[in-house]
């Protein structure tokens, strides 16, 4: 009897505990969804309805007009092709920059942990400090460098800039990850006659997949969402999507088209959202696999 009662109360306690856990998680999730809610309902309203003062309520009449407009016909300056062409620019910018910075970061992390030399720690420290550089301060000198390199106003120039400032972060990620891989592994391979590159490609890289995911997600988010470099180093038809988005959204003396703004913002975020949804699971797994042990 007594055992039964205690197990019943334990079950009740467990039930209360579960209720608390789910309750808190769902409540927080709702809070986190609130701005998204505002964006979605606004994008589904007509502009007149928004200006009539309806900001966060449900739309009276659903319309997908704003989405079509944001994607294909909204005007960015006198070019009225919507976000579509700029979307391509962003992909052309983000994919190479993520690949280059991640590849170089992986190599750097490998060297800084497995081929230590005098000053390696100092170099790592300088790389880490570089992460905190305020980008507003480097725009003008960087513009001069791009001008000299003949990359001014091009997407290739943006790839270059993002790679340069991405290296610091990716090096940090990979260094902290590779530190957890025992040195004995590489030492043994060396004794077996494996060279510098062979060890990297045959041993380190396969083991580094989780951190490759983490580093790529971070870089993808940072580069895709960047506005400052995009607006500084490209113009017109070669601008990334954030710059086009800004031109749709950031109207000073004209009338804001809130519904188109919100739809455009969500369209511009689709690739990063997809990355988070698809790779989110690997993200946590990648972090688990050692990134946080550094």
């Amino acid at each position: 009897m007594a055992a039964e009662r205690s197990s019943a109360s334990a079950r009740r306690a467990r039930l209360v505990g579960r209720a608390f856990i789910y309750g808190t998680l769902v409540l927080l999730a709702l809070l986190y969804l609130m701005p998204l809610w505002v964006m979605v309902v606004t994008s589904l309203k007509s502009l007149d309805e928004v200006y009539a003062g309806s900001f966060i309520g449900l739309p009276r009449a659903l319309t997908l007009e704003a989405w079509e407009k944001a994607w294909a016909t909204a005007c960015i300056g006198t070019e009225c092709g919507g976000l579509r062409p700029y979307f391509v620019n962003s992909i052309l910018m983000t994919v190479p920059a993520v690949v280059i910075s991640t590849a170089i970061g992986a190599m750097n992390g490998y060297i800084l942990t497995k081929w230590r030399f005098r000053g390696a720690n100092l170099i790592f420290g300088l790389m880490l400090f570089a992460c905190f550089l305020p980008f507003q301060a480097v725009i003008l000198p960087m513009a001069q460098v791009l001008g000299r390199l003949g990359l001014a106003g091009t997407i290739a120039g943006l790839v270059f800039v993002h790679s340069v400032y991405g290296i610091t972060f990716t090096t940090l990620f990979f260094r902290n990850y590779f530190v957890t891989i025992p040195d004995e592994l590489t030492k043994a391979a060396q004794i077996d006659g494996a060279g510098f590159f062979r060890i990297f490609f045959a041993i380190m890289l396969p083991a580094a997949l989780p951190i490759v995911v983490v580093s790529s997600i971070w870089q993808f988010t940072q580069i895709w969402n960047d506005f400052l470099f995009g607006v500084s180093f490209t113009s017109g038809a070669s601008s990334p999507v954030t710059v086009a988005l800004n031109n749709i959204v950031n109207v000073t003396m004209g009338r804001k088209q809130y519904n188109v703004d919100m739809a455009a913002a969500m369209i511009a975020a689709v690739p990063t959202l997809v990355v988070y949804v698809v790779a989110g699971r690997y993200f946590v797994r990648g972090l688990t696999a050692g990134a946080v042990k550094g």
Partner: protein
Amino acid sequence: MRRAPSFRDRLARRLPQLVLSPSLVVVFIGVYLFIAWTGWVSVSSSRMLPRYDFVGLEQYGRLWATPRWQTAVTNLFIFTALFLAVTIALGLLIAILLDQRIRAEGFLRTIYLYPMALSFIVTGTAWKWVMNPTLGVQKVMNDLGWDSFVFDWITRPEFAIYCIVIAAVWQSTGFAMAIFLAGLRGIDNSIIKAAQIEGAGLPRIYWSIIVPMLRPALLSVVVLLSYISIKSFDLVLALTNAGPGSATEMPSTFMFSATFRRNQMGVGAASAIMMLMAVAAIFVPYLYSELREDRHGR
């Protein structure tokens, strides 16, 4: 025949440094040379375009005599402290709750993570409406019959910075959560089991055993969040445009407007140098201790 292998040997020995050197060169130029350039501009009379003369510390004097800069510095401290504390606490809480073998974990996790994916150029507008007393949360609460409910921080200079904190926390909690969740997954479950058999309640187990084990994860979170907080720029411009008045000015927005809006490039450069010095003041001792620890075996 003898010289070639010796050259190859030497090359092989130097190969790591060789491979590393291009990164070093671009980081040296793109970061440290540009910092030096900024330092130079900060002691010049530059206004619209850089001018390479020398005026001593005049721009620094001007900087510190600008009330907006003082606001920016104060705000950075308030913002960083609150943003880190709240994001870490909330991220940890969510991570612990998610780690309790939850149904639909992937779905919930995506909800907490999605704000990271959105650009603030527009989510700022959404937040602006949510926080506006006549449009957003306050109006909804009042309409629901809770007439005394007030949430008008965004209109009040002394409270507006907390609105920025709220939006920033919203954006970054997911990231902190992911890192903590990863840390939790790396901890052996048998520790919890053992403590439970000892009769300890779950909250206590977490507080006194598990959380201390998350120290490395915490360090990663602190570094990444500090980075986000120092760089917060889009967020401030989109949400409050540094207002009301200039109550939510931050060093990054100050630097931008001094350099590109007000033709005070010298002042802007001085503010960049001040910011870097502040980072260095916190960073160098930390780095020193970390790297020293490193040398004594990890």
